[in-house]
């Protein structure tokens, strides 16, 4: 059954200029100046994956060093650098941005908007992320990378114990990349509240959109803490302040509180969108709506709140008073409940559904198994007496790889297979995908399960080598072999993607018969996403009303909904809770301002790094000029 789209969208002729109206300039100029959320979203994902593979290769080097006892393949200096950069990259430059990238790409499509609320700010976020990554990695050029671990505890990272620039690359880089997350989160929240298609009330939003909303709110409240931790550290290092100097009234535990006040929410900032992806994929492959939609929403929101009350469980061994510790331990138990609710909601969905084992679904099934173990080890770590043994051992390394590399990376791979065809318009190979999944799944457990045992045997983390006599050799060797296969498994997916993009085998608009709005447009979607905005009449627009119905404006101020909006680069801004259009948002054209502003900030940070007043001043001036231009032009984009 083929249904022609309604109204003007079905007439071919007027749409030709539309394409040219929305096209970015060709070549490098368009690349640098684009503000299209889809181009930026894909670019976020690609850039983040470059960091993933680089950081993964570092992990492989670490595993090579650890494969045998008393090994001297790479010395302690290099090992500590690899370990620190691996962890920092995975958290700051891979996981957070890759999810922001999917959010960028999918949120406007899923809520039925033509772009995000602040397209230029969006481009700015991307460029800040990009420059921050380059900034941190340029430490390799001067031959000494950060080596204070991914949480850079003071006083080890103070200038007394770590002279040299390497920690400054880290500390300033953390502040720098935080700007990107913050700007991105503001964009998501306003977009989600103010730009949903007609009929998409909050209780009809796709779960992934909910998860990005929670992600963003958590980031707004959490990121300031890590920016301050790293920022005060840099003040200590660069300007000689005494925040973390015990002899001068400073306090080293303050740093840990600041770091983990962000650090714990951060792991859920990563986890929540990953579960959002699972909640999108599972129902589609179970041929059945998600069980307990409201339960899941409530879980996501309560994870958001609770995650701010558990940070001390990372500090159980620091000598915090027992009573305080018990409160945080109990809170860590409570936070398992929303995860349990989600877990059983997915099970229920599959139980009654007819499960198809497509590749995205396989990754979700792998996720269930891995997350079960990762979650259980987390709850074990929340038991204080157990954690006094487990903390800072390989048991914790196993826990967080089960949750980060398993419960977050597996859904991300599932999402690559699920939304990849939408994003590229190219079909991925199911066969390669299956191979990739099975290799990854088996190798994952071969790599990280032994680490749990190693931890219980007493192997501390962040050691570049260990004694022959301790009997840890075999398990470490198994883990190292597993990691090579895990890398191969990810390599298969990388190859699958490259192959698909090269082979140009087109894909249907809705290959999975899914329910949310992004599947109602073409693959890949046109620059304007929707010629006329769809009208949402339930939680599953594409399952509820066949064919999907489209909005026509009624009365003044509503033609942004229709083809007219697409022609003029407009998208409606709605009331917030209700989705009646209030005004039209003019989607700006390409702009140099975002990339230049981000570059100016990079200059500023470089000035701080090398303590060069002139460079710093140049940076400040360029930022001020760029920001003033921005503010100056705010109204200029209006007709």
């Amino acid at each position, binding site marked *: 059954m083929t249904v022609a789209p309604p109204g003007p969208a079905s007439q071919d002729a007027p749409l030709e200029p539309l394409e040219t109206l929305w096209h970015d300039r060709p070549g490098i100029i368009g690349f640098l100046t684009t503000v299209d959320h889809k181009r930026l979203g894909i670019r976020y994902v690609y850039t983040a994956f470059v960091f993933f593979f680089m950081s993964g290769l570092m992990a492989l080097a670490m595993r090579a060093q650890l494969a045998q006892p008393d090994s001297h393949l790479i010395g302690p200096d290099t090992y500590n650098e690899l370990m620190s950069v691996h962890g920092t990259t995975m958290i700051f430059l891979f996981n957070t941005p890759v999810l922001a990238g999917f959010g960028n790409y999918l949120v406007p499509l899923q809520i039925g908007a033509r772009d995000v609320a602040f397209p230029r700010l969006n481009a700015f976020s991307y460029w800040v992320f990009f420059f921050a990554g380059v900034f941190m990695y340029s430490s390799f050029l001067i031959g000494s990378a950060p080596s204070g671990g991914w949480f850079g505890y003071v006083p080890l990272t103070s200038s007394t114990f770590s002279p040299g620039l390497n920690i400054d690359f880290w500390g300033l880089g953390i502040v720098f990349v935080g700007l990107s997350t913050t700007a991105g989160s503001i964009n998501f929240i306003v977009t989600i509240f103010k730009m949903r298609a007609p009929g998409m009330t909050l209780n009809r939003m796709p779960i992934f959109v909910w998860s990005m909303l929670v992600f963003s709110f958590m980031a707004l409240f959490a990121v300031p803490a890590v*920016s301050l931790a790293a920022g005060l550290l840099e003040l200590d290092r660069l300007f000689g302040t005494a925040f973390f100097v015990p002899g*001068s009234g400073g306090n080293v535990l303050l740093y840990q509180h600041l770091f983990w006040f962000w650090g714990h929410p951060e792991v859920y900032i990563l986890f929540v969108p990953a579960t959002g992806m699972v909640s999108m994929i599972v129902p589609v492959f179970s041929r059945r709506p998600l069980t307990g939609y409201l339960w899941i929403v409530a879980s996501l929101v309560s994870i958001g709140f609770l995650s701010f009350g558990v940070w001390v469980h990372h500090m159980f061994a620091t000598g915090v008073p027992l009573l305080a510790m018990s409160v945080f331990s109990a809170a860590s138990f409570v936070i398992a409940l929303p995860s349990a609710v989600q877990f059983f909601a997915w099970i229920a969905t599959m139980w009654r559904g007819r499960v198809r084992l497509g590749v995205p679904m396989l990754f979700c099934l792998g996720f269930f198994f891995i997350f079960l173990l990762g979650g259980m080890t987390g709850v074990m770590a929340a038991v204080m007496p157990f954690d006094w043994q487990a903390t800072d051992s390989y048991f914790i390394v196993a826990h967080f790889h089960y949750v980060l590399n398993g419960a977050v990376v597996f859904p991300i791979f599932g999402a690559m297979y699920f939304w990849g065809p939408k994003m590229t318009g190219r079909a991925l190979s199911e066969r390669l995908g299956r191979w990739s999944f099975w290799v990854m799944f088996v190798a994952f457990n071969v790599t990280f399960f032994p680490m749990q045992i190693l931890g219980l045997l007493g192997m501390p983390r962040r050691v570049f080598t260990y004694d022959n006599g301790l009997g840890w050799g075999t398990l470490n060797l198994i883990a190292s072999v597993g990691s090579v296969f895990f890398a191969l498994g990810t390599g298969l997916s990388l190859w699958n993607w490259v192959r698909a993009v090269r082979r140009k085998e087109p894909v249907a608009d809705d290959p999975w018969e899914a329910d949310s709005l992004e599947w109602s447009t073409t693959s890949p979607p046109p620059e304007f996403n929707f010629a006329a905005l769809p009208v949402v009449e339930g939680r599953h627009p594409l399952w509820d009303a066949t064919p999907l119905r489209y909005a026509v404006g*009624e009365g003044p101020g509503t033609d942004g909904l229709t083809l007219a909006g697409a022609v003029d680069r407009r998208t409606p801004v709605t009331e917030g809770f209700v989705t009646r259009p209030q005004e039209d948002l003019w989607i700006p054209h390409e702009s140099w301002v975002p990339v230049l502003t981000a570059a100016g900030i990079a200059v500023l940070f470089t000035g701080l790094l090398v303590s060069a007043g002139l460079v710093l001043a140049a940076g400040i001036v360029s930022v001020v000029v760029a920001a003033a231009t921005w503010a100056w032009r705010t109204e200029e984009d209006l007709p």
Partner: protein
Amino acid sequence: MTVVAAGSVPIGAAPRPGRSVAWWGMLLVITTEGMVFAILLAAWLYLRASSPSWPPAGTELPDLRLTIPFSFVLWASSIPVLAAERALARGRLVAFRTFMTVAWLMGAAFLAYTIHDFQALHYGWRDSAYASGFYAIVGLHAIHLGVGLAMVAVVVVKAALGRYDRGHHRSAEVAALYWHFVDAVWLFVMPTVFLLGHLR
């Protein structure tokens, strides 16, 4: 199935226009900036709680003789901003400019006071965690005030050049909101950093 008739749904506009997305965006900037200050003040109190004496021996307590009057100047500067916002909503651009300029001058006076205050201190930021915190918190607020002054300056110039009219003035709304934030933050910073030191 009635394909054609069901194909489109008429959608009416909202009865009232709302705040612009830029205003909401600024509200979120303020949320996260507010968090920056909240955490910084919490850190200040944490350091205080873990120190034997606060401020450390030999460090003078903040001098309140100028702080209190100038704090009131800063807080009061929100009043002309409110008046300016009302004027703008009615399209009275000259009144808007005047009120904003008054607010700008009050803010500038406060910034001048802050700089004077720093110069009058007998300790440097390296001397103790107390000193570091004092400089960092008050300095961060001063930077925010500086940004606010720059924004208001842009807005006043734009208004003078006739770039606003009744319906088009979102940068002005945004600047006003930010100004209120800078004032409100001082409601928390001043008591915590200046007054609490005198209590023991």
